């Protein structure tokens, strides 16, 4: 296992050390005292375990494909943005835009997520043990977004085929968002997934499912009123 201590060193030096450890064949790296620096662990493509012991700043674990990254503190804006595959686990809370535009993999937030969680996701799974803020799930195209606590305003606005699940209250639904009952398959998937990541979470059958009402998928001028409202 490689240990990297950030101390007063620059982000560039720390990331270079991570690269060096990867090149040397290390498959487990611990980064101490990250001090909420930005841009840590971006673009990692190896199936490696990296643990940031503390908080990270903006864009941590963005553009990754394959690694398993754990953050023991909280994360700033743009966590795991555009990840392809792998796992990112935050023990604390996340800033705005966590898991934005991911195509695969799993993003796990044990605390709360701020605004614009999982916007425009194209696959993968986003799991939040706490609550999420404004405009979560906006324009989600595929994948699943699960919030065990409450969801903020404009939830699941303008969705395509992302399935969203909320265990608590939804402050307000976004345009074209529709609540429906989860299917038995959904409930089974929620139960097994949540048992793995959040053992204390509500049971799958307690969740509301939110999907697209499909009114915005095709433009039809007879539905001009719907569009006026949406825009």
């Amino acid at each position, binding site marked *: 296992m490689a240990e990297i201590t950030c101390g007063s060193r620059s982000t560039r030096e720390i990331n270079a050390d991570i690269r060096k450890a990867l090149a040397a064949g290390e498959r487990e790296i611990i980064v101490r005292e990250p001090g*909420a620096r930005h841009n840590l662990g971006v673009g990692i493509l190896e199936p490696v375990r990296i643990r940031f012991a503390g*908080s990270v700043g903006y864009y941590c674990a963005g553009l990754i494909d394959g690694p398993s990254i754990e953050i023991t*503190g909280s994360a700033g*804006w743009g966590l795991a943005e555009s990840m392809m595959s792998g796992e990112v686990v935050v023990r*604390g*809370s996340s800033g705005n835009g966590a898991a934005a535009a991911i195509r695969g993999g799993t993003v796990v937030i044990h605390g709360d997520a*701020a605004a614009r969680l999982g916007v425009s996701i194209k696959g993968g799974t986003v799991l939040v043990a706490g609550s999420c*803020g*404004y405009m979560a799930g906006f324009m989600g195209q595929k994948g699943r977004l699960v919030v065990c606590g409450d969801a*903020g305003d404009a939830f699941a606005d303008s969705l395509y085929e992302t399935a969203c699940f909320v265990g608590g209250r939804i402050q307000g639904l976004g345009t074209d968002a529709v609540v429906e009952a989860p299917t038995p398959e959904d409930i089974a998937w929620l139960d097994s997934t949540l048992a793995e990541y959040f053992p204390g979470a509500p049971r799958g059958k307690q969740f509301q499912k939110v999907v697209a009402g499909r009114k915005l998928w095709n433009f039809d001028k007879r539905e001009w009123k719907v569009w006026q409202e949406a825009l």
Partner: protein
Amino acid sequence: MCGIVGFFAKSREPAELGRTVLGMLRALGCRGPDSAGVALFGAPHDGSFALRVKLGEGADLEGKARKLARFLEAEQRCSHFSSTAAYARFLAAGDRDLDRLASAIESLDRDFEVVSIGHRLEIIKQTGSPENLEKTYCVSEIRGTHGLGHTRLSTESRVDLSHSQPFWSHGFPDLAIVHNGHITNYHQLRRRYQQRGIRFYTENDSEVVAIYLAEQLRKGAGLHQALERMLHDLDGSYSCLAATEHQLGFVKDPFALKPLVMTETDDFVAVATEEIAIRSALPGTYSVREAQVKEVRVWPR
């Protein structure tokens, strides 16, 4: 961009306020290289007000300080005059008409501006980095209970001392704000206030936040209520901190367009644009979270 910070010590004993706020600001220097400033609430002066006057933007500051000192010699109940670099500072007795005194000072010289008045508030700001602010004014030595800080990246108005933040609400002692974002109905609000005779000292849209909050507080609103009303009346993007003699508060705009994180422990409250500001100035174990959309919080003493 821009970086804002706020620190509130829960203890009544004056803390190393200047050192903490400066430490937080240093971490946000890269967000705002144009200017840096602090609004610090120190020990009160037995009912007197501290006035801080901008002497000018660079030329013949010593001459201007002498000019102000001569004027104050003839004034009643003004004492403890001193000057450092671009600022003069003195105390005025609590029963003086401060508006009249401030406008008399400002009419002495076109460069003069009363930057802050308060029982405890002192604003120190200038162009350049937090490091420069420390070099010129030894901010880290100032003790107090709570304060604000700002690093500025100018996007809409000129870069000079007056356009830097924090802003004092002219005419309203002990009220200061810092703002990160843009107030998009600024021109409309500015016209409305100017028609009522309120003077704007700068073309910086953040100044209107200070004027707006002072108006709300004058109408009898508490700071919490005033910040909530801001969500209705001010458009655009804003993470904004406000401080009075006994309170620190923040508001985040209805689209959550600007960052703001916070932490609260048994000893202090710290709020900042980025977590790195809190972590680099305040050691210890605590958790930090992003403020939610439309969130308003106020900590009273």
